[in-house]
Structures are given as structure tokens and as C-alpha cells.
């Protein structure tokens, strides 16, 4: 059953591999500098590596946009995104998987009455705009640098050809790694919050979380897509927008890979933050638009007449059309899945605002007299809770997300047997585990209350002040909090 539900994500991964592998190796294969088989195998390996080792950053952003919490819902979100991509491609409208999946998640949010994280959405949309622009800028800089070097060094034409082949393989591998790291969130991001796979310890060496397992499966799907279906796309991609020489292909692929990398690397983000530099949000971006941006950048450098404005217009139209279409398709598809096929598209979630929740919200500066009118009312689903929030309070969209988090009613029990058996001792620190043990035998009806107890028991569970430098530490701690909430949940 799990595989059936994951199938839509796998299909999305496969189609992403079939289309986007061409962005990475298309020019190299199209210009016959690299053989298709070499390109496809290398692409597959590095996509998987990128997905497993660096895919977490962008998935976190996708997860914060909307927590699709039921497997059937996640299935339909991925399927609707895949369908939108397929349909729009047939209509020859430029489309990106990243934009489709974001639209589909918002469609789910609307259907399930979950609030959308507007800050995350703003970040994502800003990044879409930034992606082709940044890619174009990188391409221009790399082009100028390459021109300076290549026109001045005395290398034999044949040897230069050889170095170019090696360069195309290396940049292609880097591009594939970045593609896996950045775009795995599109393929598997929606399944992460449904937690379909259990974490396990890999021979006592490393914590192999359910998320990593999902990324591995998704990465394999992308790799299979690249190997089975990208040949034709690769062989025709060279001349589709502008005929690229191998040198230009190298520049374009490198610019594209750099852009995908900076929007997905947590390590780079950490380095930038710790060096006091502005960091980039970790957001899945469109690989195709990064390529188009890079080609246009080089085109502009070679003269404005090379730039086809219609291409840029097409991209801009895609930014709006794709998410809207994907959102609508998802909304309609979820309606059918829930009412015709009787599938649970969002988990039954109970919300109760009790006195303690109210105090907590007050501490967080969320004060609204209307909340008192909702005191101790049990809401059986997100829809009813949202309706009452809208009717009785004037809480903003941003604050609504926090109200949802604190009012989320759950059943947690800290079982001593589970602590010894299930808690990953390689991942959590001894201090953190000791703090959990101190709470043995306690029951909680709100996850945040458990987190507060843990914070009081050990400073290793305490979030640091929200500064740029602490961002990654807090992110990692939040992941650990989510993990122990999953472990001690009674109805899991």
C-alpha cells in the first residue's frame, strides 16, 4: 500500500529525471562531447548522492509551507503536480516541477483548511524570481573569466577538447548533485511530514531517518528517469534555445549547478551565516529556468539581439499559471479522493485552546479577546478550527500558524522502554537523552508542553535566540523535537 501511495512521487521523480537530466548533461551529449550512457550513469549516481546527503534543506522549506499529514493526501498532491507538469508541457507552456508542487501544497492547505506559512511562501516566490537572474549573472561572470583564460592560454586544440570533456563530466556531476539536493523536495517533500517510513540505525554507524530513506527512493526514481527517458531530450536540447559550443555548455551548466547548490546547501548557508554574509533561503527552484537564465546571460553578453524576450515572458507566465493550475487541480482531486474513494487526505487533528495554551499564546504576543470565546472547545478538524478563528478573532495569517501549533491536541506518553529501544543514541546527545529519561512516565496532551518540560530539564533542548548564526542550530533542534514527538505519540 505504501508503494502505491508513493507511486505518484516516484512518477514525479521519474519525469523530473527524464526532463531535468537534460539540463545537466544535455549540451554535453548534444554536442557529442560525452556519451549518453556515461552521462546517464553519472547523473543517476550524483542525483542520488545529492538527494540523500543535501536534500534536507529544501524539504524543510517545503514542509514548512504546508504539512501534508496523510499519505493519501500526499499521494494526490504529488500526482496533481505531476499531472499539471505533464499537461502544461503538452500545451508547450514552460513549466517547473518546483512551482507545480508549491501550488499543489497550497491546494491541499486550502482543502484541509490548514494555514499557509506566508513567510515561507514569500521566500519561495522571491527565489523563483532570483533563480534565473542569479544564474544569468553567474553565467556572465564565468563567461568573462573563461574568455580571459581560454583565449590566453596556449593549449593544443585536442588537449583543450580533452580538458573540456573532463570539465563537462565534473560540472555535470556537480549539476546532478545540486539537482538531487535541490529538487528532491519536489519529489518527496510532501511525503516527509506523513512519516511513512521508520527511522533506523545503519549498523550502529549513522542515523538513517525515514526522510533519508524517502530521499533515497526519490533519488533512485530521478536516476531511473534520467537513464530511461532523457536520451531524446538530451540529444535535442542543444539547439532548442541557442546552439551551445562545448565551452558555453560548460559555463551554462556550471552557473546552473551553482545556483541550485546555493539554494540547497545547508553547509554553505551555515558558512555564509557564520561569516556574517547574507545567506540564501533553501528553496527548490526550477532547474530549467536556471539553465534558461544562464543561456540568456551569455546571450546578453554577446549582444541583446540574441535575447528572445518571448522566452522570458514564458517563464514569468509560468510563475503564476503553474502554481494556480496545480493548486486548482489538487483541490478538485482531493475532493474526489475524499468523497468518492473515501480516503483520508488529511489526518484527523484535534484542536483545543485551554488555559495553558492561552497563556502560552499571550507569552508569544498573540492576544485576541476572541480566543477566550473559543476556550476549551474541542475542534475535531482543521476546517472547523479555522472557521471559528476567522469568525471570532482577527488573528493574522502569520500568527494563525502559531495558534495551530500550540492548540494542536495530541496524546504523548514517555515510555521508559521506548527510550532505551527506539531513541537514536547517535543522533541525540547524552544530555538530551537524560532529559527525556527524567520525564519517564509522564503523559502530555500537547507536544509543546513536552518540549517545555525538556527545555527545563536540560539546556540542550533549549532553542537559542533567533539570530542568523543560531538558525541552523535551532533548525536541527526542531528536527529532533519533531522526532521525539513522533516516537512518543500514542496513536502512531
Amino acid at each position: 500500500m505504501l508503494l502505491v501511495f508513493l507511486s505518484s512521487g516516484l512518477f514525479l521523480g521519474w519525469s523530473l529525471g527524464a526532463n531535468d537530466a537534460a539540463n545537466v548533461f544535455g549540451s554535453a551529449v548534444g554536442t557529442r562531447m560525452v556519451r549518453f550512457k556515461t552521462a546517464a550513469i553519472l547523473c543517476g549516481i550524483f542525483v542520488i548522492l545529492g538527494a540523500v546527503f543535501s536534500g534536507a534543506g529544501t524539504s524543510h522549506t517545503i514542509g514548512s509551507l504546508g504539512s501534508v499529514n496523510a499519505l493519501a493526501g500526499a499521494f494526490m498532491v504529488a500526482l496533481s503536480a505531476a499531472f499539471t507538469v505533464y499537461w502544461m508541457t503538452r500545451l508547450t507552456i514552460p513549466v517547473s516541477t518546483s512551482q507545480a508542487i508549491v501550488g499543489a501544497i497550497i491546494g491541499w492547505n486550502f482543502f484541509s483548511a490548514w494555514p499557509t506559512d506566508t513567510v515561507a511562501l514569500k521566500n519561495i516566490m522571491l527565489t523563483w524570481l532570483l533563480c534565473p537572474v542569479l544564474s544569468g549573472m553567474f553565467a556572465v561572470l564565468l563567461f568573462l573569466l573563461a574568455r580571459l583564460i581560454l583565449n590566453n592560454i596556449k593549449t593544443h586544440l585536442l588537449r583543450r577538447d580533452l580538458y573540456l570533456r573532463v570539465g563537462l563530466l565534473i560540472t555535470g556531476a556537480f549539476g546532478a548533485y545540486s539537482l538531487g539536493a535541490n529538487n528532491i523536495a519536489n519529489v518527496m517533500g510532501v511525503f516527509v511530514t506523513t512519516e511513512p517510513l521508520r527511522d533506523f540505525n545503519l549498523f550502529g554507524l549513522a542515523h538513517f531517518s525515514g526522510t533519508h530513506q524517502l530521499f533515497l527512493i526519490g533519488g533512485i526514481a530521478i536516476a531511473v528517469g534520467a537513464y530511461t527517458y532523457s536520451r531524446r531530450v538530451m540529444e535535442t536540447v542543444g539547439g532548442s534555445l541557442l546552439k551551445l559550443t562545448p565551452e558555453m555548455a560548460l559555463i551554462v551548466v556550471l552557473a546552473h549547478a551553482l545556483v541550485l547548490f546555493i539554494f540547497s546547501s545547508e553547509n554553505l548557508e551555515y558558512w555564509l551565516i557564520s561569516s556574517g554574509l547574507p545567506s540564501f533561503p533553501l528553496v527548490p527552484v526550477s532547474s530549467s529556468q536556471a539553465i534558461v537564465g544562464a543561456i540568456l546571460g551569455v546571450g546578453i553578453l554577446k549582444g541583446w539581439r540574441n535575447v528572445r524576450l518571448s522566452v522570458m515572458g514564458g517563464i514569468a507566465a509560468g510563475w503564476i499559471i503553474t502554481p494556480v493550475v496545480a493548486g486548482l487541480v489538487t483541490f478538485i482531486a482531493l475532493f474526489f479522493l475524499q468523497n468518492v474513494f473515501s480516503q483520508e487526505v488529511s489526518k484527523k487533528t484535534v484542536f483545543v485552546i485551554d488555559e495553558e495554551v492561552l497563556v502560552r499564546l499571550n507569552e508569544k504576543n498573540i492576544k485576541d479577546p476572541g480566543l477566550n470565546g473559543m476556550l476549551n472547545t474541542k475542534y475535531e478538524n482543521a476546517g472547523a478550527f479555522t472557521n471559528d478563528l476567522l469568525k471570532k478573532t482577527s488573528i493574522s495569517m502569520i500568527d494563525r500558524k502559531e495558534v495551530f501549533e500550540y492548540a494542536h491536541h495530541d496524546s504523548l506518553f514517555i515510555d521508559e522502554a521506548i527510550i532505551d529501544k527506539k531513541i537514536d543514541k547517535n543522533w541525540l546527545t547524552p544530555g538530551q537523552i537524560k532529559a527525556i529519561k527524567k520525564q519517564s512516565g509522564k503523559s502530555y496532551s500537547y507536544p509543546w508542553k513536552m518540549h517545555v518540560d525538556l527545555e527545563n530539564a536540560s539546556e540542550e533542548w533549549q532553542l537559542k535566540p533567533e539570530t542568523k548564526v543560531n538558525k541552523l542550530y535551532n533548525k536541527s533542534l526542531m528536527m529532533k523535537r519533531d522526532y521525539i514527538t513522533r516516537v512518543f505519540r500514542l496513536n502512531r
Partner: protein
Amino acid sequence: MAILFRATRKLETQIDEFLNAVNEGALVFKFGINNYLGGENREFKERIAKIAQLESKADDLRRNIESQLYEQTLIPEHRGDVLGILESTDNVIDTMKETLFQFDVESPAIPDNLIPYYIELTEMSVLSTDNLVIAIRAFFRDVKSVKDHLHKVIFYEKEADRIGDNLKREAFKMDLELAHKFHLRYFALHIQNISDRAESVADRLAIYTIKRTI
């Protein structure tokens, strides 16, 4: 990858050997003409044998290079250009060999007063070929300096034309049989033809050089 490195090194050497053969062929041609004009028959025959050998070597190398470029899909972007350069350069050494053979077969009677013209004409044609070879080497290794040598090819070709023209005028002014005059013109044209061919390779090379700079 190691195989590709080896193949590349081998091809680089073969291209160099091909250009050496053309260069050497031009020198042999020059000495051959001088031997003919000086009446040194034995040396002239030796030069003919040598140029035939060099021409055949250049042919073999060219065929080998071409087939390797295609079999191993090397320089896919430039191999058409490289093939064009090699084939048209091969024509230059072919023409030189043919010209020496014509001298041997037809034994034109060159009046003494025209000998300096033929020597100078040969010198100019050989100089244009020399500079062409340098330009081709630069095309492979140092694309920026190709132009520096190409203009010399053109210059020497123009010089060859000028000297050839003077030679023909001088010949037709002389009191000789018309057939003899035609014969003298015919050999001047043969030698001029070498620099003409060098010039047409240079024209191609100029375009390919633009293609090579990014």
C-alpha cells in the same frame, strides 16, 4: 580516460608530423627548382624522390588523423574545420610535387635572364607556405597569434603574383616561339598556384579562428 589521453597525445604528434612534412616539402621544392635552374640534374632527381616520399607521408598522416578524429569523436565542434585545413594543406604539398614532376617531364627551357624571376617566384611561394604552416600550428596551440602569420601568407602570395606577372611580361617581350612563351608562362602559373593554394587555406583558417575564440 587514460586511453583518451594517450590517443590525444598520439594525434597531436601526428598533426605536428603532418605539418613538418608540408614544411619540409616546401624546402625540398625550393631546392629542387634551384637545382633544375642550375642544371644539377642528379640533385634534382633526388629532390623529386624526396618530395614524392614526403607527399605520400603527408597523405597517410592526414588519412590517419581524419579517421581517428571521427572514430573517437574527438573535437566534435571543430573536426570539420580541422579536416578542411588538413585536406587543403595537403593540396599545397600535392601541387609542389606535381610542379616538380612537370619540370622533370616537360623540361622547360628557361632563358638565363628569366632564371632570377623563377627563383624569386619560388622563394615567395615557399615563404607563403612556411607562414601558412606556422599559422596552422598557432591555430592548434595559440589561437591569438594566428592572425600575425596569416597576413604574411597573404603578403607573400601578392608578391608571388607581382613577380609572376613581371616574369610573364618579360617572357612575352622576348623574341621566342609563341609555344615557348606559353610554356614559360605555364610554369610560372604552376609555381604561383602554390601560393594561391596557401592563400585559400589562410582564408579558411581566418574564419575557423574566429569560431575558435569564445
